[in-house]
C-alpha cells in the first residue's frame, strides 16, 4: 500500500483499477492468473516477446534502408533489451507466481524505468523512455485483439496521468471513467475543471507517482482530501468503500437543499455564486444553485487557440453565460495571464521575465497593450445590453492603475457611442483585491470602485511570499494565516464605510471551514467552484450571524495559522455534524 498526496480538486471517493494514461493507452484486464494456466501463459508471453523482437527487427531494417546505419543502431540496442536474459527471467518468475503476463511485464519494465530515472542525469532519464516504449510494445502484443483503447473502454477505470490535455480529455470514454489523478496541475488545470464538471473525484499536483503504479492495480482516489492510495490493504479498502457509500448519501442530501434559500438560520441572505472558466459551465453552475457568476475567468479565450481572440469570440462567450443567468449578476474578470502564457507575438515581446508572478501580467499586460484590452472591454460593454454584466480588473496594485483601466473603459464606451453600436456604459466596475498593497489601501480604493472581489489565492501568495505550486514551500501556504484574516477585515471595513459590496472568490471560500469566519467578518457574497455550492449552503443554513461573529472574533485573536485552522475545523464539526461524518 502506498499513499500519495496532492491537491483535492473535486470531492468524492472512487475505487477501481488504474489506467495509466500516456505511458499506456490501453487497460490491463487482469492482474492474476490461476495456477493451472501458468504454462499456457508462459508460452503466450514468449510468443509475444518473439513478436516484439520481430517488430524491432523490422524497424531496424526500415531505419537502415531509409536513414542509414547510425539510426538502425538504436534498434539493435532495443532488440538486445527485449532479449535481455535478466528481464525475461524476472518476468517469467512473476508469471510462475501467477501474475498475468501483461501485469508482470508492465511491473518489471516500470521498475527498471524508475531505477534509471532515479539514478539521475539527463541521459538515463531519456533512456528510460526506451524501456517504457518496450513495455508498450510488449503489452500490446500480449493483449492482441483484446486490447482496449482509452476511447473505447468496456469496464470502469480510474485514469492516472502526468497531465491530461484538452484533446485527451475530449477523447475519454466518460461512461467508464470513475475518477482522475494527475502528477502536475492545480485548481485551474483542465483535469480539475473537467472532473468538477463531470462531478468525478479528482486529485492533481501529486508529483511523480506513475512509476509506482501498474495498469489494473487497485487504486483509491479520495477527491475530498487530496489522497491517492495505490494497492490499498483490506482494512483501508473497507474503510473507503464505507466512505464512498456515505459520500453518495451525503450528495443526495445536499441535492435536496437545492430549492431552499441560501440564508443563515436567522434569515440573513448570503449570495452564493459560481466561479467558471468555460461558458459551458454556466448552466451546470445554475443547476447547483448558483445565483449568478461571481468570477468568469476569461483566459481560456486566449489559450484555446494559438491566436488572440476577436471581439466576436469574446462577445459570443459572454452572451452564452448571460443567457444561463437572466436577471442575475455575471462578473467578467479581464485578462489575467502572464506574458509568458500569451499566444502569438506578445510572448516574444517579453522573453526574459525572471519572475512571471511579479512581472508583466494581468492588468499590467492589458494597460501596456491597449488594443488587446480594448477588444475585450468592447465585447463586455456590448454584451452588457443583454443582462446584469459587470467587469472587474485583476491584480490592481495602485489607484493609478485602476483609474487608467477605468479610463480605457470610458474611451471604449465613447467609441461605441460614436459608431452607433448598442452597448451599456454604466455597468458596475470593480477590482480584484489580491495584491496586499490594494488591501492596505482599500479605504482609498473603495471611494472609486463599485465593488471589491477578494482573490484569496494570489492575496495569500503575495502576502506570505509563497508559490503554492512549488512543492518545496507549498506547506507554508496557509489560508488561515492571521495576516490574511486581518487584510480581509480591512477590505470588508472599507467596503462597509463606502457602501460597496465585497465578495470573496478565491479557493479559500470553497472550503466550508472558512465560511463561518468569512460571514462573521461581514462577507455576504461568496463565489466558488460550482460543485462546492450545495455543501456551503448547508453550512450557511446552520449558522447564525451572532455565532459567525463570535467565531470570527475568536479566530482573529489567534496568533498562528495552525491554531486558526484547528479552531475553525472544530467549529465546523459542531455546526455540521452530519457532513463531518465523512471524515
Amino acid at each position, binding site marked *: 500500500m502506498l499513499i500519495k498526496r496532492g491537491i483535492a480538486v473535486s470531492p468524492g471517493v472512487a475505487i477501481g483499477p488504474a489506467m495509466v494514461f500516456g505511458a499506456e493507452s490501453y487497460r490491463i484486464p487482469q492482474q492474476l492468473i490461476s495456477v493451472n494456466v501458468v504454462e499456457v501463459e508462459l508460452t503466450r508471453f514468449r510468443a509475444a516477446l518473439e513478436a516484439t523482437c520481430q517488430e524491432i527487427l523490422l524497424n531496424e531494417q526500415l531505419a537502415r534502408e531509409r536513414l542509414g546505419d*547510425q539510426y538502425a543502431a538504436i534498434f539493435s*540496442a532495443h532488440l538486445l533489451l527485449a532479449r*535481455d*536474459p*535478466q528481464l525475461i527471467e524476472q518476468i517469467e518468475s512473476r508469471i510462475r507466481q501467477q501474475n498475468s503476463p501483461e501485469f508482470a511485464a508492465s511491473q518489471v519494465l516500470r521498475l527498471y524505468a524508475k531505477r*534509471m530515472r532515479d*539514478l*539521475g542525469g539527463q541521459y538515463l532519464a531519456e533512456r528510460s523512455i526506451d*524501456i517504457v516504449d518496450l513495455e508498450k510494445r510488449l503489452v500490446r502484443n500480449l493483449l492482441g485483439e483484446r486490447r482496449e483503447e482509452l476511447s473505447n473502454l468496456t469496464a470502469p477505470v480510474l485514469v492516472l496521468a502526468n497531465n491530461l490535455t484538452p484533446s485527451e480529455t475530449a477523447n475519454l470514454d466518460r461512461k467508464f471513467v470513475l475518477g482522475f489523478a494527475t502528477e502536475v496541475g492545480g485548481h485551474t488545470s483542465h483535469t480539475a475543471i473537467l472532473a468538477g464538471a463531470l462531478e468525478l473525484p479528482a486529485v492533481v499536483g501529486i508529483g511523480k507517482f506513475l512509476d509506482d503504479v501498474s495498469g489494473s492495480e487497485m487504486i483509491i482516489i479520495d477527491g475530498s482530501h487530496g489522497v491517492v492510495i495505490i494497492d490499498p490493504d483490506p482494512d483501508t479498502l473497507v474503510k473507503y468503500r464505507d466512505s464512498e457509500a456515505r459520500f453518495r448519501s451525503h450528495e443526495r442530501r445536499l441535492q435536496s437543499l437545492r430549492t431552499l434559500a441560501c440564508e443563515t438560520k436567522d434569515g440573513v441572505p448570503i449570495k452564493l455564486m459560481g466561479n467558471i472558466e468555460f461558458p459551458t459551465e454556466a448552466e451546470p453552475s445554475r443547476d447547483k444553485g448558483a445565483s449568478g457568476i461571481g468570477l468568469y475567468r476569461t483566459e481560456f479565450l486566449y489559450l484555446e487557440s494559438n491566436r488572440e481572440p476577436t471581439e466576436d469570440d469574446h462577445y459570443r462567450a459572454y452572451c452564452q453565460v448571460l443567457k444561463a443567468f437572466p436577471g442575475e449578476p455575471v462578473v467578467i474578470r479581464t485578462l489575467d495571464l502572464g506574458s509568458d502564457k500569451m499566444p502569438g507575438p506578445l510572448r516574444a515581446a517579453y522573453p526574459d521575465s525572471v519572475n512571471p508572478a511579479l512581472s508583466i501580467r494581468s492588468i499590467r499586460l492589458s494597460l501596456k497593450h491597449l488594443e488587446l484590452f480594448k477588444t475585450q472591454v468592447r465585447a463586455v460593454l456590448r454584451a452588457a445590453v443583454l443582462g446584469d454584466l459587470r467587469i472587474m480588473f485583476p491584480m490592481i496594485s495602485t489607484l493609478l492603475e485602476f483609474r487608467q483601466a477605468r479610463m480605457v473603459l470610458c474611451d471604449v464606451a465613447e467609441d461605441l457611442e460614436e459608431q452607433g453600436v448598442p452597448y451599456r456604459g454604466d455597468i458596475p466596475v470593480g477590482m480584484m483585491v489580491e495584491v496586499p498593497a490594494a488591501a492596505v489601501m482599500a479605504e482609498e480604493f473603495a471611494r472609486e470602485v463599485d465593488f471589491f472581489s477578494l482573490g484569496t489565492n494570489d492575496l495569500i501568495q503575495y502576502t506570505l511570499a509563497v508559490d503554492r505550486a512549488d512543492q518545496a514551500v507549498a506547506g507554508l501556504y496557509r489560508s488561515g494565516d492571521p495576516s490574511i484574516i486581518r487584510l480581509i477585515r480591512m477590505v470588508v471595513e472599507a467596503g462597509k464605510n463606502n457602501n460597496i459590496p465585497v465578495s470573496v472568490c478565491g479557493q479559500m471560500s470553497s472550503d466550508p471551514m472558512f465560511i463561518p469566519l468569512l460571514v462573521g467578518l461581514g462577507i455576504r457574497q461568496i463565489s466558488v467552484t460550482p460543485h462546492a455550492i450545495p455543501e456551503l449552503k448547508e453550512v450557511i443554513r446552520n449558522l447564525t450571524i451572532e455565532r459567525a461573529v463570535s467565531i470570527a472574533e475568536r479566530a482573529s485573536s489567534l496568533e498562528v495559522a495552525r491554531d486558526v485552522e484547528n479552531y475553525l475545523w472544530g467549529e465546523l464539526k459542531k455546526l455540521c455534524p452530519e457532513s463531518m461524518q465523512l471524515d
Partner: protein
Amino acid sequence: MVAASIQRAMVTVRNSKGLHMRPLELIARKAQSFRSQVFVTRGSNRVDAKSLLHLLTLGAEPGMELEIDATGDDANEAVEQLVTLIGSEFEGFDRS
C-alpha cells in the same frame, strides 16, 4: 574444479561520454559470447554483464573504476576481453 575459479580485474572507463547505450550494448553482446557468468561492479552495485538493462543502471561515467568478475571455464578470456573493451575509447560509437 580449477575451471570454476573466480577471475577479477579492475578497469577505468575511458571513452569521453561515459558508458552509454551503444558501448553498453557492445559490452553485453561480448559478455553473452562467453559461457561464464560475468559481472560488473561499481561501488556496491554488482550487475550481470550479459544484461543491457542491468548495465544501464550502472550509470558509468568517464574516469570511473569498475570491477569485472567472471566464473566459469572461459572466465579468463571473458575478463581479459571485457577489460580491453571497457577500457577502450569505443571510437565511432559516441554518437549514440
